[in-house]
C-alpha cells in the first residue's frame, strides 16, 4: 500500500512500514524550546530524572519570545536557560539571533526527511524543508530531550492541491490565508497536510515556510510542502509520496485568479478577499514573525515604501526573523528604505506577535499584521483588533492609513 510523505518519514525512523492510525515511539533528529516553553521544559527535565540531553548537537534553546528581557522575572528565566545550555553543552541562541523556527532552519538543525520536535506550535514550519515537524508542550519536549524519542500516532494526511500560478502581486501569504479560510482552524486537527501542485513548485524556501507555518492555524500536526522545486544550499534526498498513497481528504483549488487575502478579527480562518476590508482605518502596522519576517517579506515592503512616508496616523514596527535576515536587509538597502519611510526597527525575534512586550496596541486600535494569529488579546490587549495580511498588504496599508490592496504599488 502506498504511503504519504509523513508515513514514509515516520517509517524511516521506526524501521518498519507504518500507516495512519498506528501508535509508534520514534527517534527524533532534533528538538528545541523557546523562552516561553524552555523554563518549564528544564523544570520537567530535572523532575523526570534527566541528567544529559540525548545529543547536545541536536538540541537547542532560543531566547526569542521576550527578547531582550522586559523585566526581572523574565530576565531570570532567560538566565535559567543560559545556565542549562552551558551545563548541557548545547547551543543557546541569544537575544537578537532570531525566531526559533528561523534559526533552526538557517543553522541546519533540521533537514529534509527529518523528524523534528519543537516546543512551539509553529514547528510545522519545517515542513517547508520536507521534514516531519511537530509542536509539543514543555513536558513532552523535556521527555524528548531526555530520551531522544517521541510517541506519535501516525497521522492521516489531507492533500491540498493548488493548480495554477499566483498572479503578480499575490504572495504565499495570500495563498495560505485563503487555504486556512477554506480548511478552517480545526479542519486538520490531529492530521498532516501535504501541499502539492503547481502553485507551490516555484516557491522559494521562505515562501514555503510561510505556507507550512500556518498549517498550525488549521490544527494540523504537521504540514509538508511537496519538495518538487525545492532548492537548498546542500544536497538532499527528498521524500515524495507514493502515487497510491491514501489521503483522508483532498482539496483541489485553482488559485490562478486569487486576490490578496485578509484575515479579520478574531480568528485566522475569518478570511476574505481584501476588497471586503479595504478602507478599514488602521493605527499600527507590523511586519515580522516566523510567518513573514524574512528577507523577501521585507524586500516587498521596501518596494512599496521606497521614497515614500507612511501615513501620519500610523506607526510601523519591523522585527526581522533573524540576525541574518537583518544583515541581508541592511546589505541590500531594504532596511534603510523601510526606516526612511518611517518604520521602527526592533530586535530580531518574535517582537509584538505574542503580546509580551515591544508594541502592545491600545484600546480600540486596529492592527494590520503579517503574523499568523489574530486571536483576541493576542498582541497583549483584548480591546484591540488584529487583521492579518501579506507583508505587501501591511506596507500598502501603512502608507495609506487604511487596509489597502497592494496591487497598485506592485504592478
Amino acid at each position, binding site marked *: 500500500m502506498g504511503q504519504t510523505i509523513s508515513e514514509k518519514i515516520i517509517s524511516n525512523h521506526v524501521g518498519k512500514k507504518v500507516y495512519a492510525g498506528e501508535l509508534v515511539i520514534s527517534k527524533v533528529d532534533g528538538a528545541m524550546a523557546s523562552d*516561553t516553553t524552555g523554563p518549564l521544559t528544564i523544570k520537567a527535565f530535572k523532575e*523526570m530524572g534527566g541528567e544529559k540531553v540525548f545529543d547536545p548537537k541536536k538540541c537547542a534553546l532560543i531566547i526569542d519570545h521576550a527578547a531582550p528581557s522586559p523585566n526581572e522575572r523574565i530576565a531570570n*528565566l532567560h538566565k535559567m536557560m543560559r545556565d542549562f545550555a552551558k551545563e548541557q553543552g548545547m547551543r543557546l541562541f541569544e537575544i537578537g539571533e532570531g525566531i526559533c523556527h528561523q534559526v533552526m532552519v538557517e543553522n541546519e538543525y533540521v533537514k529534509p526527511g527529518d523528524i523534528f520536535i519543537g516546543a512551539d506550535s509553529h514547528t510545522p514550519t519545517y515542513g517547508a524543508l520536507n521534514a516531519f515537524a511537530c509542536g509539543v*508542550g514543555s513536558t513532552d519536549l523535556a521527555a524528548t530531550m*531526555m530520551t531522544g*524519542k517521541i510517541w506519535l500516532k501516525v497521522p492521516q494526511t489531507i492533500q491540498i492541491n493548488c493548480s495554477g500560478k499566483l498572479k503578480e502581486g499575490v504572495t504565499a501569504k495570500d495563498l495560505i490565508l485563503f487555504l486556512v479560510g477554506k480548511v478552517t482552524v480545526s479542519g486538520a*486537527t490531529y492530521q498532516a497536510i501535504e501541499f502539492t501542485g503547481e502553485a507551490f513548485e516555484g516557491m522559494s524556501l521562505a515562501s514555503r515556510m510561510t505556507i507550512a507555518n500556518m498549517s498550525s492555524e488549521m*490544527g494540523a500536526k504537521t504540514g509538508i510542502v511537496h519538495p518538487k522545486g525545492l532548492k537548498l544550499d546542500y544536497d538532499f534526498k527528498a521524500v515524495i509520496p507514493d502515487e497510491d498513497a491514501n489521503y483522508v481528504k483532498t482539496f483541489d483549488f485553482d488559485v490562478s485568479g486569487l486576490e490578496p487575502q485578509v484575515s479579520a478579527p478574531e480568528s485566522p480562518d475569518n478570511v476574505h478577499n481584501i476588497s471586503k476590508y479595504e478602507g478599514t482605518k488602521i493605527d499600527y502596522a507590523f511586519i515580522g514573525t516566523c510567518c513573514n519576517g524574512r528577507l523577501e517579506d521585507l524586500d516587498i515592503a521596501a518596494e512599496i515604501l521606497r521614497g515614500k512616508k507612511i501615513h501620519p496616523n500610523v506607526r510601523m514596527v519591523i522585527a526581522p526573523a533573524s540576525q541574518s535576515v537583518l544583515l541581508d536587509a541592511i546589505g541590500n538597502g531594504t532596511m534603510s528604505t523601510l526606516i526612511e519611510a518611517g518604520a521602527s526597527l526592533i530586535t530580531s525575534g518574535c517582537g509584538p506577535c505574542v503580546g509580551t512586550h515591544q508594541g502592545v496596541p491600545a484600546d480600540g486600535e486596529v492592527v494590520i499584521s503579517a503574523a499568523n494569529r489574530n486571536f483576541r488579546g493576542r498582541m497583549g490587549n483584548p480591546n484591540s483588533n488584529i487583521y492579518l495580511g501579506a507583508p505587501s498588504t501591511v506596507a500598502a496599508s501603512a502608507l495609506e492609513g487604511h487596509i489597502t490592496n497592494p496591487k497598485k504599488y506592485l504592478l
Partner: protein
Amino acid sequence: MAVKTNIKAKAHVYGNHIDTDRIIPGKYTKTLDLSTLANHVLEDLDPEFNKIVAQGDILVAGINFGCGSSREQAPLALKQAGISVVIARDFARIFFRNAINIGLPVLEISDHQIQKGAKLDVDLKNGIVKDLTANISYEATKLPDIMIAILNEGGLVNYLKKNGNYSL
C-alpha cells in the same frame, strides 16, 4: 500521584474554539509561578471565572478547545485554578497532549449537550460522564493506551521518573 478517578462537580460551560490566548494570555506565561497563571486563567473570556470557580469544578467546552499556541501554561493554569477535568467536543492536539502530560484529565465527547451549571458525575476510568441535571449519560472517546499509562502515573514527569523511557 495518580489522579482522582471519580469526580462529582459543577460544570462551567463555554463555547467553541477557545484558544490558548484566552485560556492564559501570552503576557502572563513567562513564569514558573503557577498561582500567577491561575489568577489570570480565562480572564479575556470570562472576567468572573476566577471568582466563581471552586476546587474540583469541571470545565466544559465545544469544539477545538485549546487551539493556538503550544503553551503548557494553559492546562497548568486550569489545573491550578482547581479544574479537575476538561470535557470538550474535541480538543486541539497540543493542548490535549499537554493536559495529559501534566496530569489534567481530558475527555472528548463529540455530541455532549451539557449546559451551564449542570452537575456532573464523571467516571474517569471508564470515560463515562453522567449529566445529573439533564439526566443524560455520555461515553467519552477512548484514549490511546500510552496516554492512559501517563495519566495513571499523574503525568509524564512521573511516568518517565518511574520507567526511564517510553514503552508501548
